[in-house]
């Protein structure tokens, strides 16, 4: 387990000068994950904030070999890269002296929705790679459209809080469970505020041979209508309210890695975010209760699974 001094002493593989928003939750995640291993890294990124914001020609923030090809195929693209690595190594065309690991990045749109098939395929085929989803809960890059990761009640540009419909009506898709059902050796949820937990999980995932998965909460001041300086605190609140439980499933065994001493009410997370503003108007309490009930149910389910072989 590295401390911050050691981590800060390592080379910055993800430079400043990118065009992601002030207060964006993605860069702290990426910076930390890229530091969590000493292996060579190669990354693919799905079309989205991370891709657009970090590689506006002729500039790139990536000090590792990096590729973007399209939106729905970060996993398929990295599976090609990883396979080429094995092929070229086998044939002696690239040096085999240092271990190389592969990471596919994607937002929730590129992972939960349009990229789900290619993610599933790559996991099933067992490529040696980490898939990292930065989940900011909507299609933020194109202007805050709802995704299947968008929280219930959220106001987005395609699930607007209107006179009749109060924002997104559906509960979010539980992607991490879907990934776990692929019997991958390691899958976890993390959050940038808990850097120790995130670093540990990333290091673990990258040390494993085979497909691994990290689903990381990524606050978005633009789409959450929140203050840029609050991003990390909002990430923390997502775990303190148990909206975003931190857990890992290693070789099929569930471990909840963070249990808040006192589970905070979901209002604490909803209130600072403008996307839930309408829920604090008359009638909104019904929806908040519904959200709270679902969170409670899922948290209990998770605690029930604690320590158990779930796959």
């Amino acid at each position, binding site marked *: 387990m590295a401390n*911050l*001094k050691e*981590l*800060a*002493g390592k080379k*910055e*593989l*993800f*430079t*400043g*000068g*990118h*065009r*992601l*928003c*002030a*207060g*964006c*939750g*993605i*860069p*702290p995640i990426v*910076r*930390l994950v890229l530091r969590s291993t000493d292996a060579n890294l190669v990354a693919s990124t799905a079309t989205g904030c991370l891709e657009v914001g*970090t*590689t506006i*020609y*002729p*500039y*790139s*923030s*990536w*000090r*590792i*070999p*990096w590729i973007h090809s399209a939106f729905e195929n970060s996993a398929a693209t990295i599976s090609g890269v990883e396979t080429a690595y094995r092929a070229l190594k086998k044939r002696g065309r690239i040096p085999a002296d240092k271990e190389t690991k592969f990471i596919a990045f994607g937002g929730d749109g590129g992972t939960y929705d349009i990229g789900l098939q290619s993610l599933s395929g790559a996991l099933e085929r067992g490529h040696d790679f980490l898939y990292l989803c930065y989940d900011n809960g909507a299609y933020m890059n194109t202007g805050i459209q709802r995704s299947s990761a968008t929280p219930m009640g959220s106001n987005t540009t395609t699930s607007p809080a209107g006179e009749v419909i109060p924002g997104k009506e559906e509960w979010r898709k539980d992607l991490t469970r879907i990934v776990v059902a692929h019997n991958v050796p390691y899958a976890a949820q993390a959050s*940038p*505020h808990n*850097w120790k937990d995130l670093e540990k999980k990333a290091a673990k995932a990258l040390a494993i041979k085979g497909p691994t998965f990290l689903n990381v909460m990524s606050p978005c*001041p633009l789409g959450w209508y929140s*203050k*840029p*300086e*609050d*991003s*990390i*605190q909002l990430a923390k609140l997502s775990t303190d309210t148990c909206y975003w439980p931190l857990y890992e499933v290693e070789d099929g065994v569930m471990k909840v890695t963070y249990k808040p001493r006192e589970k905070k009410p979901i209002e604490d997370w909803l209130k600072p975010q403008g996307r839930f503003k309408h829920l604090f108007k008359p009638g909104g309490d019904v929806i908040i209760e519904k959200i709270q009930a679902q969170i409670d149910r899922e948290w209990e389910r998770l605690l029930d699974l604690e320590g158990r072989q779930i796959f």
Partner: protein
Amino acid sequence: MTDKNNEELPEGGVIHEGGNADSYETGGWRKLRPVLDNEKCTNCLICWVMCPDSAIIVEDGKMVGFDMEHCKGCGICDTECPPKIKAIKMVSEEEAD
């Protein structure tokens, strides 16, 4: 900056110098500027790990200042600086100048 119509540009839009965004300034986005109180800072480096813009300069394990070319003034460093320390505060650019 390369010539935009230069036909000798690397094929397929490949960027041959990964990390060259380092030379791109985003400091101009800033409305608020972080100011460090050296006396209070304990070099816990929480600001460094949370900074979205790799704009906390760390030398020999010590927080030595901000990279103003990249800092967008989001204020995360100020918010995340532990409550008992509070070594960073955000001031308006005008005020700072």
